């Protein structure tokens, strides 16, 4: 890559200055400080759009009463039932059952606490079906769908 191609873009890495190897005029590779390269930004944004699309689908399903709010937390934190099962020390089929509102509403407080710990959210949010932001997005609550 030529030196002039290290374009500055503050998009994806929030202005984080990284270093990468760049060939100078003599062909010698050297470490150059710069921001994230433009095409990386594009594909990274694409990955996040896909995550956001899935979160959107999940919210619709919750509103329709098809899945419990656990589905939102799992999707927003980029997990699937297998990974969530590992984190909470349960079998996968149990987590799958908890995705159904019927079983989720009947969860014991210990299990809810386990989920709350993984998602770093108060257990009451899970019980009341409040959709608080994922681990990487601390801030105000997004929406309240406690119905």
């Amino acid at each position, binding site marked *: 890559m030529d030196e002039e191609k290290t374009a500055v873009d503050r998009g994806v*890495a*929030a202005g984080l200055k990284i270093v990468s190897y760049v060939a100078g005029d003599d062909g010698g*590779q050297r470490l150059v400080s710069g921001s994230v390269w433009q095409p990386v930004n594009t594909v990274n944004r694409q990955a996040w759009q896909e995550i956001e699309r899935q979160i959107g689908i999940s919210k619709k399903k919750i509103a329709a009463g098809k899945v419990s709010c656990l589905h939102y937390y799992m999707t927003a934190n980029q997990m699937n039932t297998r990974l969530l099962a590992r984190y909470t020390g349960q079998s996968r089929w149990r987590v799958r059952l908890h995705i159904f509102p019927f079983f989720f509403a009947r969860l014991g407080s210990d299990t809810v606490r386990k989920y709350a710990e993984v998602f770093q959210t108060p257990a009451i949010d899970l019980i009341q079906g409040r959709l608080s932001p994922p681990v990487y997005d601390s801030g105000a609550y997004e929406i309240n769908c406690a119905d």
Partner: protein
Amino acid sequence: MTVERMRSTVLTEFPHIQSAHCESGVVSNLLRHRGIDISEAMAFGVGGGLFFGYLPFIRLNGLPLVTYRSAPGSILNRFAEIPGIDMCQEKFRSRKKAMEKLDVLLDDGIPVGLQTGVFWLPYFPRALRFHFNAHNLVVYGKEGNEYLISDPVFPEPVRCPADDLVRARFASGALAPKGKMYYLTSVVKRFERSSLIVNGIKGVSRMMLDRPFPLIGVKGIRFLAGRLEKWPKRLGSGAADLHLGHVVRMQEEIGTGGGGFRFMYAAFLQESGKEMEEQSLGDCAALLTEAGDRWREFAVMAARVCKGRGRPGDTYRAMAEKIRECGLLEEKVFRQLQSWLKERL
């Protein structure tokens, strides 16, 4: 989980030098702390860091694994095997014990390398917080309940609360770190570098050319080209674009040094060429830089397609052709390196 505090402040002098890739950066920084001046590229090359593998049966977020580097931990293992370097590597079952051991080592003034899951590290930019569990960093101190961390891909040292670091050390899923920590116990002051360089090159050339398995090395690059060509037909355009974006992400994301580690390896070959006074290594570096440029051209084209702003020539077939060109160039590089190795015998 709360981790018991030992002394309120423990601080070891540690040379934080930013690097392009975490594992080679950590190795180079740990050795620098012991007074051995070794560049990141040299650590990457000696550790045999370059690789290619397209492994569709391993899925990351539902997308096939494409890797441009050797398995996580392999650079460390290579260094641990070098005579004169004593490295202690440990994994833990208990979170409490893992953090206690870390604190004890920090108390003794030993900087400790850790394998962590990026998702749980709060100092990472939001957009890079995926479930990737093979990120390496060095903890060199503790202040109150915060650890002082030299994360090689960051320009400055960072801080991380103990609770978050525990989560990152015990992240679950693929490549789970299981609390892995490593530190140097003793290191000799001088190395005979040329044999290490030769061994590093030998290992990578063998991986890239001589493995019968069709999904790795140069064969793997061609295999990916063949698959990529068929993605729009097999998966539909939406899913094909996602797959394509994933290939580029693995190639160019932070930690690759750009061009899927090809530029970094070229830097290693240049440095080795100078050190051993071997012009042919420099020639191979130039060729590998060209391969890296081809990978970048592919990435630019792919990014346009993913954005939905493809130019007339930006087809999956054209992108597959670019990848085949990369394969051809890399085959040339490693054939030349192999004949250079034979001449030395």
